[in-house]
């Protein structure tokens, strides 16, 4: 065994042991199998593992932002951060995004597809129970998914399951999902925060009103917009859930949230005000997690409307933006500069060899001239409710673009009703997208030619052809190639400027421990801090 390999095995062992998925005995056995002596392995356990080994017990208090009195338990209308954090704590999903941003099992233990990826089989955990003791079976899984399907469904993610033709049970612990087209990403889609598993009623609908679930913690008391108290669900079928109790406290005001963390009223907060982040970092009792995410800021323009129907105008706008300056000045460095394709570096199949487009006012002016224009006057709509600093960002972009002869007039729109009256209505707007787990999902909802949210009205035959092909392709290498080409197309022809991908910035007391890797799916380790983190001291 080479030293290099040995070191890798050792690291992998430590990593597994630290996340608690391995006991001391197992650790010693595996370490010895990897060629270590008993004393060396034992020493390693003491020095490297147990220091960061999860401890059982305690009440973990999370100060959560964007939690409202109007939040409900209906999974179809989940929308706020508070609902997402809570739903991952008291409820569960078929699959989950792991701390390493891979795909892992939750209520489903394994899944497989037919070669055309049009029929998927999910095997369910046989030992999973709901909080009232009922067993979780195939009929619950089917009812939970059907909540988001059908004519009368009010679910916000109805469109994600549009291609599903039928969901059937195969025995008590297997479900079979049939689709009218290949869909290689279906197991990834199942991690979407809306698709929680709930108990079925006799008529095939789900029982969502009671707040019951099969997640690691069960609700003791819940007041929307104020807080929730939970205790451990003893029948939870998975490893983890180190805390005995969880308390969510709504702290919508950034100042109240941060003060609460500093004065020890809460152990963790889901969002840090970027303007005061540096001050928080100076506090020795506080640890700030700054995690790159797939949540993109996009500036879509209507590509079927002048002047954006000219690809050179679009390129001019893409060259006229100084992404690095925006990341530094608007996001205080807590963002990853984007290129103009909507695939973040952390996503599967993210291309690594496309060179990021630089800020180049001369090139922008060149493309403008090529489009037959000497100057360009356009309006860019934004609202600070979409992202604090959104309007400032547009003002800065406007200054940058002036050097290329482009006059962007930033328009501050009303916070209220931005999604219904500005987005998809005005030709050039500021948008923030939540992270989607795979390129296919992102492209299908916002870039596909006939998608209702095709915010740039972009029509590119080759792109759409590839999208369909890649959707049903189970071979990873081929898929990676297809997504590479699609990213290139979006970058050079698409109608969306992507300034950056925003990070999740959250903070915790230094006595809260977590694994080496944390998921970038949502705030607080993919909204799963309640069952992944622990009290270190």
């Amino acid at each position: 065994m080479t030293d290099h390999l040995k070191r890798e095995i050792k690291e992998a062992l430590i990593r597994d042991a630290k996340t608690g998925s391995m006991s001391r005995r197992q650790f010693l056995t595996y370490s010895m199998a990897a060629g270590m002596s008993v004393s060396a392995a034992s020493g390693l356990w003491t020095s490297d593992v147990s220091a960061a080994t999860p401890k059982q017990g305690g009440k973990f208090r999370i100060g959560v932002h964007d939690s409202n009195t109007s939040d409900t338990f209906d999974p179809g209308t989940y929308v706020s951060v508070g609902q997402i954090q809570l739903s991952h704590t008291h409820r569960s999903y078929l699959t989950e995004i792991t701390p390493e941003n891979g795909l892992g099992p939750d209520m489903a233990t394994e899944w497989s597809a037919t070669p055309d990826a049009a029929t998927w089989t999910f095997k369910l955990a046989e030992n999973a129970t709901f909080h009232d003791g009922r067993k979780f079976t195939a009929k619950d899984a089917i009812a939970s998914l059907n909540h988001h399907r059908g004519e009368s469904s009010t679910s916000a993610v109805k469109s994600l399951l549009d291609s599903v033709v039928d969901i059937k049970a195969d025995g008590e612990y297997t479900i079979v999902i049939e689709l009218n087209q290949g869909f290689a990403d279906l197991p990834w889609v199942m991690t979407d925060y809306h698709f929680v598993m709930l108990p079925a009623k006799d008529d095939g609908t789900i029982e969502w009103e009671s707040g019951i679930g099969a997640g690691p913690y069960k609700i003791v008391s819940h007041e929307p917009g104020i807080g929730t108290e939970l205790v451990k669900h003893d029948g939870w079928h998975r490893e983890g859930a180190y805390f005995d109790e969880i308390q969510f406290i709504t702290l919508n005001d950034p100042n109240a949230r941060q003060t609460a963390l500093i004065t020890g009223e809460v152990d963790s907060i889901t969002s840090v005000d970027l303007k005061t982040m540096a001050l928080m970092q100076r506090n020795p009792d506080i640890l700030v997690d700054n995690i790159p995410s797939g949540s993109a800021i996009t500036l879509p323009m209507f590509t079927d409307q002048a002047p954006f129907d000219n690809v050179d105008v679009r390129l001019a706008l893409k060259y006229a933006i100084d992404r690095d300056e925006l990341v530094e000045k608007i996001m205080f460095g807590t963002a990853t500069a984007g290129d103009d394709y909507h695939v973040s570096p952390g996503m599967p199949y993210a291309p690594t060899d496309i060179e990021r487009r630089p800020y180049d006012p001369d090139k922008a002016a060149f493309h403008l001239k090529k489009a037959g224009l000497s100057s360009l006057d356009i309006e860019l709509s934004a609202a600070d409710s979409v992202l604090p600093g959104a309007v400032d960002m547009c003002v800065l972009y406007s200054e940058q673009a002036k050097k290329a002869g482009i006059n962007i007039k930033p328009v501050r729109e009303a916070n209220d009703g931005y999604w219904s009256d500005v987005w998809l209505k005005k030709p050039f707007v500021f948008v923030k997208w939540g992270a989607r787990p795979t390129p296919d999902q992102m492209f299908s909802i916002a870039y596909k030619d006939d998608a209702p949210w095709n915010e740039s009205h972009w029509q590119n035959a080759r792109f759409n052809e590839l999208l369909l092909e890649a959707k049903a392709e189970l071979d990873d290498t081929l898929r990676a190639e297809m997504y590479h080409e699609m990213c290139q197309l979006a970058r050079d022809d698409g109608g969306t400027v992507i300034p950056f991908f925003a990070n999740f910035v959250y903070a915790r007391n230094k006595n809260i421990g977590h694994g080496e890797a944390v998921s970038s799916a949502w705030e607080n380790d993919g909204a799963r801090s309640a069952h992944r983190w622990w009290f270190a001291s």
Partner: protein
Amino acid sequence: MLDVFSIVAKRLGFGLITLLVISLIIFIAVELLPGDIAQAVLGQGATESNLAALRAELGLNDPAPMRYFNWLKGAVVGDFGVSLVSKESVTDSITPRFVNTLMLALYAAVIAVPVAISLGVLVALFRNTLFDRIANVLTFTSISSPEFFLGYILILYFSVKTGWFPSIATVSPEMPLFERLERTFLPALTLVLVVVAHMMRMTRAAIINLLASPYIEMAKLKGTPAWKVIVRHALPNSWAPIINVVALNLAYLVTGVVLVEVVFVYPGIGQLLVDAVSKRDFPVVQACSLIFAATFILLNLAADVGSILTNPRLRHPK
């Protein structure tokens, strides 16, 4: 006394009409807001098909006047309906919040009113002295600063730096009274600082206004000490304006606390109203607003009755 009762009855009748008009105005205002509840609930996730399904489920396809009268039918018999968003009874979701708001208002009032009136008497007594100036400057400063700023200052000194009081005022119904008073001390103090100046200045002005009257002159001439002139002779005659200002400020303590609630994360009714407006949850908006309106009407009525009782001349308007 009979005449007082008839005034009260008449005023309550007018109050009811006012409430009816207000409810209509609020309904129209909510209707005028851009976007409807279905769009507000689904947000970025709205599509034609789920919007249509949600609108049908919420009964938004009925014409607006019909929805208003359906609501009104319930409201007159005390049934404020269910929240369109959470499907919970409006009464159930508002009651605990309103109790919290009232408790905080009461807490602040119990401190603020005696402090303001005694300060007012003192500054009238020592008018134009250094004490008067300092009291004025301090209270004016506190009334001129926005509440959230006062709140932050208090949090900084009494919570972050000294750790004397908790920075957030999370309370629950089962919390013991003393702990509750400690938890809510900072928000109550913020409110006290905001309302004291107004009441104090009015007390001072009302008293000084009377000091030129002949009967005060008479009291002075017969050798009554200055404090007695003010407390015995001037104060009783200046109750009417003072009571009015006190009532206004009490109403403010109930209806104007949204900012304080946000800063201290206090579970009161203000935050509920703000959330309901942003989601266009009409029954909740309506109920909260009517509570606020009723508070104003009742406190104004109380102020008028108080003034009448302290000044018999007002009972016989010419």
